[in-house]
């Protein structure tokens, strides 16, 4: 018991020193990270709450390499043309209902579908995935990292000419 007190005291001192250092460094940052973030509004939080499965970058890399899934880019067509995931097809969220109704996009109901948009703070990919699921495409997942995370991981980007 006697040996435990100095151990806990030093452990508390380490925690205190770490807390002071992290607060000081964060205060000095050009853009300090707020102590309380707005994570409940984050697109991944909303996706999970809606019961949608999220795809990680490693699994996406495998899916792109194997071509086993249909990858749908939910951004506006101009953004898609400027650069998109290899093998992806453009299906802007705003035009999804129209394009699916006109059969311009040959999608099977049980097909594995991955949607994405620009970054982890955009929501077109989420909205498209939810729309597809509502219309019967139940095997739809969201890649929430978006094109930005794909690029950061060194992934190749296709450009439409």
């Amino acid at each position, binding site marked *: 018991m006697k040996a435990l007190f100095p*151990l806990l005291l030093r452990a508390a001192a*380490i925690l205190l020193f770490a807390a002071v250092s992290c607060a000081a460094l964060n205060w000095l940052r050009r853009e300090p*990270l707020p102590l309380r973030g707005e994570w409940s509004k984050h697109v991944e939080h909303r996706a999970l709450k809606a019961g949608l499965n999220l795809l990680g970058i490693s699994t996406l890399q495998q899916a792109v390499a194997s071509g086993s899934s249909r990858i749908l880019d939910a951004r506006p067509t101009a953004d898609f043309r400027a650069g998109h995931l290899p093998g992806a097809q453009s299906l802007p969220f705003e035009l999804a209902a129209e394009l699916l109704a006109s059969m311009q996009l040959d999608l099977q109901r049980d097909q594995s579908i991955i949607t994405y948009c620009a970054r982890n703070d955009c929501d077109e990919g989420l909205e498209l995935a939810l729309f597809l699921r509502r219309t019967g495409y139940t095997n739809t997942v969201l890649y929430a990292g978006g094109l930005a995370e794909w690029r950061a991981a060194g992934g190749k980007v296709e450009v439409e000419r």
Partner: protein
Amino acid sequence: MNARLLLVARLFLAGLFIYASLPKLLAPQDFALVVFRYHLLPDGLINTVALLLPWLEICAALALLFPAWRPAGALWLSGLLGLATAAIAISLVRGLDIDCGCFTLQPGRSHIGLWNLVRNGALIALTLWAGWSKPAP
């Protein structure tokens, strides 16, 4: 021999944890996203934990190099490793498709898997040994 091994183990662990803390320290927003993706903490705690964790790693790693502070440093490091291991195990059971964020925040470089559990188990054992063992006289 035992004293040299202990010294090497302590230097290795201190270097490893300082190396692991640097990406988290330099990009707290990215690390907060990694913490968030485990979906284990209340929203209000995510940023605080993301800011505090790398500094705890650094302070505890340095403590490992000073005899009087060594057991406290080892206590923190093994505790942090234990929590990380539990978080990874829970995420694997829940089928989450996420990066570990253990040593790099580069997307796609550290997908969680059973390997993380084995590695962390070995690191916990090494930390406890390096933190509490005394060289034979």
